[in-house]
C-alpha cells in the first residue's frame, strides 16, 4: 500500500518576473504532521494554495491523494480540509450558519460537537464579524475539520490564539494524527513545529533548504549542545578553566554556559572540577539546539547543508 498522500515534484510557481517557488520537491506520508517552515515570502502559502487547488502550477507535478489539484480541484473538495491564512466568511454569517452552510455542501450533518470542542458553542448565534480573531480562526478550523477529511491543510492555525486555545488545538491535531489524518502545517512558530510535526521542510527563497524530522534537523546543524551550570562558590568562573569538547563558553546571570560537541565528556569533566574545588552544584542544564536555533542558522546563512 502506498503511504504517500501528497507528492510534490520539481514544483515551480512564477508571478510575472518573480520566481516564488523554484523546483520544490517533497512527500507527505499518511497520518503524519508535516511542517512547512520558512521566513515571510519563502513560498509556504503559495505551495499550500496550489495543493489546495486555489492557484495553478507553472511547472512540476503535484498530487494530493493521487489527484492533480490544478486540473481536478473539484474532486479534492471532500478529501481535504483547509484553514486559509487570510480569508473568512461573510461578516453577517453566524457561527451555526457557517457550520450548517459548509456541511451541507460537503453532504454531511453539521457536527455541532466540534463547536463545543473548539469553545464556540456559546457563540453559535454570533455573527462572524463580531468574533475575536482567535474565535474566527477556530471557526475556520471547525469548518475545515467538519467533514472529517483525510488531509487537512493548516496555514498559521495558531496565529491570534491564546495559550489555552493553542494547547487545545495541539491536542486536537494529535488526535487527528492518531486517527490517521494527514496534516500539512505552515507555521512561523518553531516551538509549535518542533512539538507537533513529524517531519518538516524549511523553505528559503522558494526552495527547500532542508527536510527531515525536527530531531534530524537540529542534530544536523552545528551540533553544539548548551550546558548551563551554576555552583555555590563560582569555582567555574576561575580564569583558565577549560573542559573537553567545549567550543565556546560565556558567563551570564551566575551561570557558566558551555557549547559542547560532546556533552557527556564535558559534563563529566565539569562535575569532576566542581568536586576537586570543594564547590557544590546548584543547577545544571543540558539543552540540545532548538529547531528555532537551527532555523535561524539555516535562514541566516541561506544554506542548509
Amino acid at each position, binding site marked *: 500500500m502506498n503511504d504517500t498522500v501528497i507528492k510534490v515534484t520539481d514544483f515551480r510557481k512564477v508571478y510575472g518576473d518573480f520566481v516564488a517557488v523554484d523546483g520544490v520537491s517533497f512527500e507527505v506520508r499518511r497520518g503524519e504532521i508535516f511542517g512547512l517552515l520558512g521566513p515571510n515570502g519563502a513560498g509556504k502559502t503559495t505551495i499550500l494554495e496550489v495543493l489546495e487547488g486555489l492557484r495553478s502550477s507553472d511547472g512540476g507535478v503535484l498530487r494530493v491523494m493521487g489527484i492533480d489539484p490544478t486540473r481536478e480541484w473539484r474532486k479534492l473538495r471532500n478529501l481535504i480540509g483547509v484553514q486559509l491564512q487570510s480569508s473568512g*466568511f461573510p461578516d453577517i454569517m453566524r457561527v451555526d450558519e457557517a457550520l450548517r452552510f459548509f456541511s451541507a455542501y460537503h453532504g454531511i450533518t453539521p457536527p455541532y460537537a466540534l463547536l463545543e470542542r473548539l469553545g464556540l458553542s456559546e457563540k453559535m448565534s454570533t455573527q462572524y464579524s463580531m468574533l475575536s480573531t482567535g474565535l474566527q480562526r477556530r471557526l475556520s478550523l471547525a469548518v475545515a475539520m467538519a467533514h472529517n477529511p483525510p488531509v487537512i491543510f493548516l496555514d498559521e492555525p495558531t496565529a491570534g490564539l491564546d495559550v489555552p486555545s493553542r494547547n487545545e488545538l495541539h491536542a486536537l491535531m494529535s488526535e487527528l494524527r492518531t486517527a490517521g489524518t494527514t496534516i500539512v502545517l505552515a507555521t512561523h512558530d518553531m516551538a509549535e513545529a518542533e512539538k507537533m510535526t513529524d517531519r518538516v521542510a524549511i523553505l528559503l527563497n522558494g526552495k527547500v533548504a532542508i527536510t527531515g524530522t525536527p530531531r534530524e534537523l537540529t542534530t544536523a546543524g552545528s551540533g553544539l549542545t548548551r550546558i548551563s551550570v551554576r555552583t555555590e562558590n563560582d569555582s567555574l568562573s576561575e580564569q583558565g578553566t577549560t573542559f573537553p569538547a567545549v567550543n565556546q563558553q560565556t558567563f551570564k546571570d551566575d551561570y557558566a554556559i558551555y557549547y559542547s560537541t560532546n556533552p557527556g565528556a564535558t559534563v563529566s569533566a565539569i562535575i569532576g572540577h566542581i568536586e576537586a574545588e570543594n564547590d557544590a552544584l546548584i543547577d545544571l542544564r543540558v539543552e540540545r539546539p532548538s529547531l528555532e536555533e537551527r532555523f535561524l542558522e539555516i535562514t541566516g546563512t541561506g544554506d542548509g547543508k
Partner: protein
Amino acid sequence: MSAFTNHFAFEFRSGTRDKTLLMMNYLFPLGLYLLLGFMVTGIDPTFSEKIIPAMIIIAIMSSTILSMPSPQVKAREDGIFRSYRVNGVPAISILSMPALTTIIHMVIVAAIITATAPLLFKAPLPANWAAFILFFLLTAFIFAGMGMLISVISNSIQSVVLWSQVIFIPSMMLGGLTFPDSFLPEVLARIGKLLPAIYSMKIYQGLAMNYETTFNPLWSIIILLTGGVLSYVLANYLFCWDTQNSTRRGHRALAVIALVPLILGSTLL
C-alpha cells in the same frame, strides 16, 4: 436541509440582516414610491397610470443593480470566495443565489406597491395579470443578470458604483419611468432603448394594460429574454474566484455582448 436550501436561506436572510441590503431592497424603493407617488401624482395625475410598473422597475433596479453587486465584489476581494471554493461551493451557486433571493425580496416589494398604489394614488390595476407577472419576471431576470455581470467584471466597489449608475440614472431619465418616452428627442429616445427599463414599460403598457405602444411589446419580450440569458451566460463565463490569483476565462470587455439585443432594439425599433 440541502446545500441549495441552506445557501438560499442564508442569502435571503442576508437581504434583511445586512443594513445596506435592507435599505436598498425595501426602504429606498418603498420610500421613493411614497415620495414620488405623493409629489408627482399631485403635479401630473397621469403618473398614477404608470406608478405601479415604474416603481416596480425602480425597486428592481435598486436591489439588483445598485445593491446586489457590492457584497459580491467585497466577498471576492476579501477572499470569501476562496473559502467557498475549498469547501465545494460551486460558482453557479455564488452567482445565482443572490439573484434568486433578491427576486424574492422584489416579489414582496412589488406586492406592496401593487396592493397600495390603487388605494393611495388611484392607480389602475393590471388588466392582464399573467402579462403583469411576465413583466415582473422578465424585468427581474434581466436586471438581476446585469447586476450579476457588474459584480463579476468590477474589481472594486467604486467600479460597481460607476457601472450601476451608468444603468440606473439614464433608466430613470430616459426609460419612460417618470415621463413618457414619446416626449424625448429622437437621440435621447434611442439612448433610452439601450436600457432594459423602456422594454419593461412597453410589456406592462402593451400586454398588462392593453394600451397602445410605440412598438410591438413582443419585441420587448425577446430583447429582455435574450439580454438576460446573455448576462447570465457571460457572468458565469467571466466569473473568477479571486482577482489576484486566478485568471478569468475571457476579457471583461466581453460583457458588452450582453447589450447586443438592446443595441439592436435601439437601432431597429
